[in-house]
């Protein structure tokens, strides 16, 4: 009967098992990687450009395999069965359903097999995109991500599973993808892309998928792809909306007007930083981002196999070389997805490269030298939001002190604790307020607060609801108002607004915010308060 020691012992056992598990996962990832490398090496030992060495090697480089076999088949062949067909027996079986489609066929499959695709961001977009590209048999897939798997990722990032929480996203994805298709070589890049690393990371690949989540990374990736001549499939998603664009396709040098537009041609100016909303703040529906990621995989397959549909005579040109003579292609489009609109998809016709584009025009200022030297500051270009600091220390209260007010004497007014001693205003949006809230709090969403004009004679009509909340707070004029939100930013701006509206009666009444919001409340006062 020593419950405490039992608890402690169980904790230790769990910790030890978790450590073992973590270790095993690492070993598994490494073992799978090594196995793959060996398999890869077996089948493509040589990538020499010397045409005379082809038939001397055991594994002919895939680029040449079809050519070599075409040539050999004219002679009476006496070769081992394993060399007879351009794909392995298991590959015919595995890819059979797409091989029999005229859009792909044998040449298309060989294009995929010889191609390398870099997926930047292994989250809501990158997971489904990677799954379909690996499934389709793209030869090499690189994964770039510096994050680790979190529980809040799992509803949409389909390569990561519950047991992988805490693992790096790149390792987690590698394990899933290797079991999906061991023929594909997965190359891990377990760190965030930076201007200094972009060229060397992207260089070895034929095509890039932008599956990232910030404006700065979008401009960086697009610029680098233009400089290196790589086509780029870019997608994004937030809440119920998504966007998809195939950029720099064909990937011709800057200044060549026949090349496809880049991200800067479509969006020359980044959005103001305060308007940029992450999935963590704005929310995201799994299938919305999933659809966009899958469409990226689809566009990637189309780009990689576009040369396969050429007449056989010219099909021998190096697959994956997108910069060869441009073919007539569909004009570039921006696909807009709105899950709750009708129609859900809109396809916008884009123009070609912008004549004065900073990256892909003849007047381009973005150069490899500028990128490498770090003189292109993407974070500065896109701006950043400083934490809100709108109030003086006297207008703020810590969660610990607020907790005391709820149970002890109010340090500001000397009042004894009571539910009615103060007003607690929660300015999160209603849908969040409905998830969980502090007892006795009143919900006045920030959008309502910020949308209320502080000047009654202003032309914009404040509407009944908004006037309602102001007058409701005006009535019990002696009670202090505490404002809380999720993280402690909107609450400060709301306090400002309330004072502008005169709710503090020229300083007679205390209005202030709870520092750090409900996150701080959970961390320091009430651990059971839901974390969403």
């Amino acid at each position: 009967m020593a419950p405490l020691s039992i608890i402690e012992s169980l904790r230790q056992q769990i910790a030890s098992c978790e450590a073992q598990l973590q270790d095993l996962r690492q070993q598994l990832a490494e073992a799978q990687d090594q196995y793959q490398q060996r398999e890869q090496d077996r089948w493509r030992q040589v990538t020499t450009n010397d045409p005379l060495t082809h038939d001397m090697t055991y594994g002919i480089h895939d680029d040449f395999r079809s050519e070599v076999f075409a040539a050999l088949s004219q002679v009476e062949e006496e070769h081992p069965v394993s060399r007879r067909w351009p794909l392995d027996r298991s590959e015919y079986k595995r890819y059979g359903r797409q091989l029999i489609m005229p859009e792909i066929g044998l040449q298309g499959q060989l294009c995929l097999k010889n191609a390398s695709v870099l997926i930047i961001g292994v989250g809501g977009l990158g997971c489904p995109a990677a799954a379909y590209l690996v499934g389709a048999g793209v030869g090499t897939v690189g994964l770039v991500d510096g994050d680790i798997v979190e529980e809040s990722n799992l509803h949409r990032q389909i390569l990561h599973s519950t047991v992988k929480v805490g693992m790096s996203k790149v390792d987690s994805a590698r394990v899933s993808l290797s079991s999906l298709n061991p023929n594909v070589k997965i190359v891990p890049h377990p760190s965030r892309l930076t201007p200094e690393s972009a060229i060397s990371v992207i260089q070895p690949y034929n095509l890039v998928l932008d599956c990232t989540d910030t404006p700065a990374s979008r401009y960086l990736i697009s610029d680098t792809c233009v400089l290196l001549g790589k086509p780029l499939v870019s997608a994004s998603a937030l809440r119920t909306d998504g966007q998809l664009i195939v950029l720099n396709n064909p990937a011709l040098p800057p200044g060549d007007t026949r090349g496809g537009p880049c991200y800067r041609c479509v969006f020359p100016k980044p959005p103001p930083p305060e308007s940029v909303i992450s999935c963590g703040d704005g929310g995201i529906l799994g299938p919305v981002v999933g659809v966009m990621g899958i469409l990226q995989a689809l566009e990637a397959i189309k780009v990689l196999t576009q040369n396969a549909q050429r007449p056989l005579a010219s099909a021998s040109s190096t697959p994956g070389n997108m910069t060869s003579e441009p073919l007539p292609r569909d004009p570039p489009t921006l696909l807009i997805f709105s899950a709750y609109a009708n129609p859900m998809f809109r396809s916008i016709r884009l123009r070609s490269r912008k004549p004065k584009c900073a990256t892909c025009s003849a007047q381009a200022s973005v150069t490899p030298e500028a990128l490498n030297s770090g003189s292109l500051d993407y974070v500065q270009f896109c701006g950043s939001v400083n934490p809100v600091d709108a109030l003086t220390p006297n207008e703020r209260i810590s969660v610990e002190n607020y907790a005391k007010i709820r149970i002890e004497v109010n340090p500001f007014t000397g009042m004894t604790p009571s539910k009615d001693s103060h007003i607690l205003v929660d300015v999160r949006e209603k849908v969040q307020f409905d998830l969980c809230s502090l007892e006795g709090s009143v919900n006045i969403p920030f959008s309502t607060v910020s949308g209320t004009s502080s000047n009654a004679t202003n032309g914009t009509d404040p509407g009944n609801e908004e006037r309602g909340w102001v007058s409701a707070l005006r009535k019990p004029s002696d009670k202090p108002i505490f404002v809380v939100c999720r993280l402690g930013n909107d609450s400060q701006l709301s306090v400002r607004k309330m004072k502008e509206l005169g709710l503090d009666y020229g300083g007679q009444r205390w209005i202030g915010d709870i520092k750090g919001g409900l996150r701080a409340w959970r961390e320091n006062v009430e651990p059971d308060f839901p974390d969403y």
Partner: protein
Amino acid sequence: MASSKLPPGHFSILYFAAASTFTGKSTEHMPAPVKARYLFGKLEQSYPGIGEKVLSSCAVTVNLEYIDIDGDEAPHLNLMIKEGDEVAIIPPVSSG
């Protein structure tokens, strides 16, 4: 989103992503014709602040065709938005 009936003498305007959040609407009608160069000004009148906070970084389309009205020498400043046209305001979405 596809609005039911477009009154005569109007064009429809679609707001996506941040533009929809800012206006609180996904679509509305506006009187036609309007020269493309005056479009943002009209929107600023209806939604003070939208120019700086949203429109400055947006793509704009007329009848599913991208138009360039950014800067004094942009090619589509004199394009006339006519009755029955569909204009879309498309802010970049960057998360994923």
